[in-house]
């Protein structure tokens, strides 16, 4: 598989609410790399038997799209790609995302209130300050193991 080195300029919108109004400011930063790169990973603490969610940025530096097809971890009974979304009636719901496409030369953000990796019934308490491993399986890039810090 051809691996292209590339750099991406990321624009991140920082939203700050102010008395019902929304202010927006843009900050940009450049990251360089090749293949698939995972950054800013973290997960919520959870007590044994409960739920947690992991969040990170996935950047695809390749010339081809890639897909995150599954995720595994030994700290949960089930691990799935999920998305929180607002229903038509204003309630917040959650749905499974069978596969997550990472377009070429772009970054997908897994974040609170949006896309996330759902850890169903964690097999041990995930305490603030600890870490665990997630195995991400990409269609083109195969397995990638990520160390996930747990924090509040």
């Amino acid at each position, binding site marked *: 598989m051809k691996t292209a080195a590339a750099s991406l300029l990321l624009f991140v919108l920082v939203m*700050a*609410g*102010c*008395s019902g109004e929304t202010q927006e400011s843009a900050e940009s930063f450049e990251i360089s790399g090749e293949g698939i790169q995972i950054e800013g990973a973290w997960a*919520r*603490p*959870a*007590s*044994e038997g*409960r*739920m*947690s*969610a992991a969040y990170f940025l996935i950047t695809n530096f390749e010339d081809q799209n890639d897909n995150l097809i599954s995720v595994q971890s030994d700290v949960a*009974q*089930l691990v799935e790609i*999920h998305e*929180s979304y607002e*229903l038509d*009636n*204003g*309630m*917040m*719901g*959650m*749905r*499974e995302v069978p596969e997550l496409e990472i377009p070429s030369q772009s970054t997908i953000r897994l974040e*609170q*209130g949006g896309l*996330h990796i*759902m*850890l*169903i*019934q964690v097999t041990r*308490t*995930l*305490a*603030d300050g600890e870490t665990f491993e997630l195995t991400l399986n990409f269609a083109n890039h195969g397995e990638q193991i990520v160390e996930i810090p747990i924090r*509040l």
Partner: protein
Amino acid sequence: MKKRAVLFNLQLFTFLFLLSSCSSPALDDYSDVSYELIDQNGETVIFPDDFKGAPLLVGFIYTNCPDICSFITANIGKVYNELEDPGNTQFLLVTFDPERDTPEVLKSYADAFDMDKEPFRFLTGDPETIDSFMQRVSLRTQESYSRELENDERMYFLSHTDKILLIDQNSRLIFDYGGSMTPVSILIEDLNKL
């Protein structure tokens, strides 16, 4: 004499009207309800009577929710940590899934967020009471989907209203926020006005 009395009454009415417009308008007043709930330590509390006399920030959660509710819980914790003077402000997390969220489960959940301590209280109750409470605060839930686990347990998830309430010392609802979406700084700013 009669004219003077009319003039006095008019002035008094104007004064009272101006006075009332200075205070925060209430969205609701919970003084007429009484919900018997249980906290994470098994202690019975009455909402709102046991919380009168100090401002109250209330988040609504269920502990099998990994994303939105953990966001709401963490936001309540951050408000406490970032308030310059929390004073006697009270912080409640109330479950809308009482069948699964027993006091023991809530205690374990609170501990994971380092919130199993004063001034945080995680509350559950019997399903009828919780249902009545949720109707009063306009919090809706519906089962979204479920999963069969390896141990044959059926795990179900809920769609729900995303909510944090700010209630004043007289049990009046002052603000109704989108719980996970409202910046902590806004919650602190509004709390400081009470």
